């Protein structure tokens, strides 16, 4: 890895060049929030953006994805694959979101690989933008081994703000992309911002196993509304639905985002629903990230971006849940209720909250 410098103007000039050769996707401000969108004017890029509301995963795993179109022929069907993705540059991705893509890679690229994801991934260059400050009050990447300046999961990492950026080339792909950029030697990493959250995440798999039958989930789920926001805004959530739909005269097989917090997610055609309660569904959200996924792929399926906690309409806060799970008194599985049956959620925050 080598570090170099680029000026703000140099950066914009380079991006103009990049946009001429590939689809440039970067954070822009839309109605007061930040979203990753294809860039028409370089000036639209929000270089100093705070976290994007929807994570950039949607450019590799889009909210709706046509698997193939279905043409009906005489006594047969013709299935046509969608048009191939062109080259793309995903600019301004935060280290946590980049780390999330590396996690999604484990799933989507595992044999048999998901060819749509794989194709897009191969055609996408990731340009990271280190966090100059803490992005969301709830983010806790350092508790999961990440960091606000992590360069491990991008091709190029930019750090800095205002007029000067430090450029770290992390891969060959990144090196190629940078050809044509006006770089100066001797870049120095700006000091990393200190993050306010330290969340205990060690041993979480075991804690979740122990807490599987705990009434904790019921208490936590009491206020859960059962929307799918936490899963759709999560950079590592990957669950989807596949269905056929009629689109103006022909059918398509479409894959769309789906989320485990919906009651319909697991409901069978016959009516039986193995995860019939909000509590079981909420437990699935955490257990998938901190127990099932690590068992299968070796990594925690959470990067600590804080979106689920930040946007949850009823403040179901993953930091709090993880702390609660550490301190929860649980009996081994099978024994049902815990000793402290109505253990209030959020006890880890102590009594300060009680005085208003």
């Amino acid at each position, binding site marked *: 890895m080598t570090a170099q410098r680029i000026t703000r103007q140099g950066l914009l000039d380079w991006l103009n060049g990049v946009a001429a050769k590939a689809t440039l996707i970067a954070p822009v401000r839309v109605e007061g929030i930040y979203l990753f969108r294809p860039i028409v004017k370089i000036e639209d890029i929000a270089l100093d953006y705070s976290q994007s509301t929807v994570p950039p995963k949607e450019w590799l795993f889009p909210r709706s994805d046509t698997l193939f179109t279905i043409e009906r022929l005489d006594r047969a069907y013709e299935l046509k694959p969608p048009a191939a993705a062109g080259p793309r540059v995903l600019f301004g991705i935060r280290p946590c979101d980049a780390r999330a893509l590396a996690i999604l890679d484990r799933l989507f690229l595992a044999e048999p690989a998901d060819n749509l994801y794989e194709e897009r991934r191969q055609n996408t260059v990731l340009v990271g933008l280190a966090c100059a400050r803490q992005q969301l009050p709830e983010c806790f990447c350092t508790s999961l081994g990440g960091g606000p300046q992590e360069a491990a999961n991008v091709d190029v990492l930019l750090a800095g703000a205002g007029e000067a950026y430090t450029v770290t080339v992390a891969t060959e792909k990144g090196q190629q992309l940078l050809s044509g950029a006006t770089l100066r030697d001797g870049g120095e990493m700006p000091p990393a911002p200190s993050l306010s959250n330290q969340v205990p995440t060690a041993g979480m798999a075991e804690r979740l196993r122990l807490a599987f039958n705990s009434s904790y989930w019921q208490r936590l789920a009491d206020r859960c509304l059962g929307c799918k926001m936490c899963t759709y805004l999560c950079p590592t959530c990957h669950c*989807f639905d596949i*269905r056929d739909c009629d689109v103006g005269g022909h*059918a398509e097989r479409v894959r769309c985002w789906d989320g485990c917090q919906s009651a319909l997610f697991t409901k069978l055609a016959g009516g039986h629903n193995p995860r019939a309660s909000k509590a079981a569904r909420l437990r699935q959200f955490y257990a998938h990230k901190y127990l099932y996924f690590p068992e*299968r792929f070796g990594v925690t399926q959470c990067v600590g971006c804080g979106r689920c906690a930040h946007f949850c309409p009823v403040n179901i806060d993953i930091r709090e849940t993880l702390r609660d799970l550490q301190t929860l008194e649980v009996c081994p599985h*099978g024994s049902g209720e815990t000793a402290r049956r109505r253990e209030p959620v959020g006890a880890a925050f102590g009594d300060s909250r009680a005085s208003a």
Partner: protein
Amino acid sequence: MLDLTPDMKLFSLRLQDPAVAESLHYEVGQFALVSVFGVGEAAFDISSLDAPRAALEFAVRRVGTLTEALHEMEEGSVVGVRGPFGNCFPMAEYEGRNLVVIGGGSGMAPLRSVVNYVVQPARRERFGQLLILNGARTPADLAFKHEFEKWASSPQTCLELTVDRGDDDWRGRVALIPDVVRELKPSPLDCVAIVCGPPIMIKFTLKALKDLGFADSQLVGTVETKMKCGIGKCGRCNVGDKYVCLDGPVFTFAEIGRFLEEF
């Protein structure tokens, strides 16, 4: 296509590409995803045996939009199929042991291939006693009647039928499956019990078998969950930490017992 019950049909699929048909190989208990183009795709257990080579068969109960569309199809229609996926019943491990096969309603579909595997004359003596317990709501709902004679006439094999509600012509049992299990008292000695059916039936049947001394490791079943991709990516079919499409659909209850709440 063959009507099995008023709401269940047996579909025989012939693969269009002879080369693919030739190379297709599957084990007892595996599943595949069947597509009705324009309607969708769903997972079904394969009800036929790979050898001797025959058509790919699925027993499908009419429950939702996709199965409805399948049922409405005419002989000779084209559907899509992806698979085979999942694990299988370790039939080789069961050799030399007694088998109790208990199917409730459409739960008999995945078990049909187990039974047909065992009752093959060339193979029958490799297994011990075979008890088949097939239950349904009414006599009309008992699936695979056309094979009952073949099953019952196999040596060392006992076919027991039971229904929740009889009719004028029914001379057999009118009892719930768990009660029949308690009545028949199959011995857990050197025996494997394979159970498949609606969750509530499984729950009480397992309890009855455990009361008879069956250990969790002797209790095997296929698990049915909603499934979209079949290859471990859509994140929907897990029962606890087990993914039905990759680790299942065949499980011993030693494996998923602690996550039973999710099933």
